[in-house]
C-alpha cells in the first residue's frame, strides 16, 4: 500500500533466519509422508465442500434446456428466462420483502434484549437468554409444525406479514449473540459518565451506547436477513398459495422438473447470502484495519 509505513514497522526486530522453516517443517520421511497425506485429504474434503456450489453456478450458464455436465455451451438465456418469468421474479421480491421485515424485527427485539440482559441483575436472566436463544436449537420441522398449526387456527396461512414475524424469531438468537458480545466489550462507565454530564437516558442510549454497537447490530441484522431469505422448511407449510417465496418456488420446481432455470434460482440464493456474508467480512477487516491505526 502507498500509505506511509505504520510507526513501529521499522523498529520491529528482524525475524531470526530460519525461524520460519523450523516452525513445523517436516524432517523425517515418515513426517513428510504424513504431511503430504494430510494435505491430500484436506484438498479432497475442501473440494467436496465447494464442488456442488460451483456446479450449481456453472449450470445456470448452460446453453441447453437440460442439466448437463460438462456444459454444452455458455449462455445467459436462463437468466433471461428467469427474469422474464413473473412467477420467479415475484417470488424473489417476496423473499426479499419478508427477509427485510423479519430482519428489522429481529434486530430491534434482539438488540433490546441484549441490552436488557447486560444491564439486568435479576436471577431470571439465564431463563430469558435461554428463551431467546432456543429457536436456534429446536429442530426446524418442529417450528414448522408449530407455526403451521397456529397459522391454520387463526386463518393467516399465506400472509407474508405473519411469515416475517415467524422468521424474525429465528433471527433473534444471532442478533442477541452478536450484540451481547459487543456489549461485553463496552464500558458501562461511559453511560454513567454521559448521565452525570447531564445527558438523559434516551440521549445517552442514542449518542453513546448505540454508536458503539453499530457493527455488531448490522452483523446480527445480516444474519437475520439471510436466515429469512433462505428459509425452506417452515414456508412449505405456511405459504399457502399467496406467499410463494423463492425457496418455496425452487422446492416446487425441483420436484417437478430439473432445468437450468432452477440453477439460476439457486445461484441467486447463493449470491445474495454469500455476498452479504463477504460484505460483513469485508466490513470487519476494514474496521480492524482502522482500529489498528
Amino acid at each position, binding site marked *: 500500500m502507498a500509505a506511509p509505513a505504520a510507526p513501529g514497522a521499522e523498529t520491529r526486530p528482524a525475524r531470526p533466519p530460519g525461524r520460519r522453516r523450523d516452525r513445523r517443517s517436516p524432517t523425517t520421511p515418515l513426517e513428510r509422508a504424513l504431511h503430504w497425506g494430510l494435505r491430500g*485429504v484436506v484438498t479432497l474434503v475442501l473440494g467436496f465442500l465447494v464442488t456442488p456450489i460451483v456446479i450449481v453456478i456453472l449450470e445456470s450458464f448452460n446453453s441447453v434446456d437440460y442439466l448437463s455436465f460438462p456444459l454444452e455451451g455458455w449462455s445467459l438465456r436462463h437468466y433471461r428466462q428467469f427474469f422474464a418469468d413473473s412467477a420467479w421474479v415475484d417470488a424473489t421480491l417476496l423473499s426479499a420483502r419478508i427477509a427485510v421485515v423479519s430482519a428489522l424485527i429481529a434486530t430491534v427485539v434482539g438488540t433490546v434484549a441484549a441490552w436488557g*440482559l447486560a444491564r439486568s441483575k435479576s436471577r431470571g436472566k439465564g431463563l430469558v437468554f435461554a*428463551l431467546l436463544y432456543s429457536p436456534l*436449537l429446536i429442530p426446524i420441522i418442529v417450528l414448522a409444525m408449530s407455526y403451521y398449526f397456529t397459522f391454520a387456527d387463526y386463518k393467516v396461512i399465506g400472509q407474508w406479514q405473519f411469515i416475517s414475524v415467524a422468521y424474525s424469531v429465528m433471527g433473534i438468537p444471532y442478533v442477541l449473540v452478536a450484540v451481547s458480545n459487543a456489549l461485553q466489550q463496552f464500558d458501562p462507565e461511559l453511560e454513567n459518565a454521559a448521565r452525570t454530564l447531564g445527558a438523559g437516558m434516551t440521549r445517552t442510549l442514542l449518542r453513546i451506547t448505540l454508536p458503539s454497537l453499530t457493527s455488531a447490530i448490522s452483523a446480527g441484522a445480516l444474519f437475520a436477513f439471510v436466515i429469512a431469505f433462505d428459509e425452506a422448511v417452515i414456508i412449505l407449510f405456511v405459504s399457502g398459495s399467496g406467499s410463494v417465496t423463492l425457496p418455496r418456488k425452487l422446492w416446487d420446481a425441483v420436484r417437478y422438473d*430439473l432445468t437450468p432455470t432452477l440453477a439460476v434460482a439457486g445461484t441467486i440464493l447463493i449470491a445474495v447470502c*454469500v455476498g452479504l456474508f463477504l460484505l460483513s467480512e469485508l466490513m470487519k477487516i476494514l474496521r480492524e484495519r482502522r482500529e489498528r491505526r
Partner: protein
Amino acid sequence: MALGIPVAFMAIVYAYPVGAMLLKSFTEPKPGFGNFRRAFTDDAIWDVLVITVRMSAEVAVLTVVLGFPVAYFLARTSKRKARFLVLLVIIPFWTSILVRSFAWIVLLGDNGLVTKILEPLTGDAQGMLYSESAVIIAMTHILLPFPILIIKGTLDQLDATLPPAARSLGAGPVRAFVHVYLPLAVPAIVSSGMLVFVIALGFYVTPALVGGPKQSTIAVVIAQAVQVNFDWGMAATLATMLLVIATALTMIVRRLTKVKGMVAL
C-alpha cells in the same frame, strides 16, 4: 424493564405456537395419550425412527472423520492461509440447504458428474439418487462445516508447543499426535459429532429431495402426516418426540463440554 418487550414478543410469537403444538399431541383428535400409544405400537414409525437414528449417526461419524483433518490443518497452517481456506468452509455453510440438496440431485442424478465418473467403476448408469448413500453424502456435505469450525476453534486454543515438546522428549510424530494432541481435541470432537447428530435427526429438505421412500426420516413422516393424511395429532406427537429427544441431547452436549454459542462464527 427493557426485557419486558422481548420476553412478551417471544411469549406470543414463539412460546405460544410451540406450546399449542405440544398440547395438540395430547388433545388432537381427542384428549389423552392415544397418539403416543398409536405411535409406539406402529411398526412403521419404529422403522422410521431406526432409519433416522442410523442415518444421523452415520452422518455424525463421517462429518467428524472428514472434518478433523481439515480442522487440524487449518489450526496449524499460517494465519493468512487459514483465513482464505476457512472461506471455503463458510461459503457452503452460508448456502441454503435447499440449494445444496438441489446441487446433489444434479451431481448424483442420471447425467450427473458423480454418476459419470463412477460409471466405468460400477457399470451403473442409473446414478445413486433416491438411495441412502445419496442422503448420507448430501447430509454429510451440508453438516461438515460444523465439526470443522468447532474443532478448529478448540485446536486454535491448544498450546502449539505441546507436540514439539513431546517430540523432543523422544516421541515419534504419530505417538506425539495420538498421545498428546488428540486427547486434548476429544471434547470438541465428541461434542461436534453429537451436535451434528442432533441437527441431522430433524432434517427434512435433504431426505425429502435426495432420498427415496425408504429414506423417510421422522421429519419427512411428520410432513406427510400433515400434508397427506391430515393427521394433525400424529404430526404433533412425532414433533413433540423429536423436540424432547433433541432438547435432551443438546443439554447433554452442553453439560459435557463448554462449547458456547452454536453461532459457529
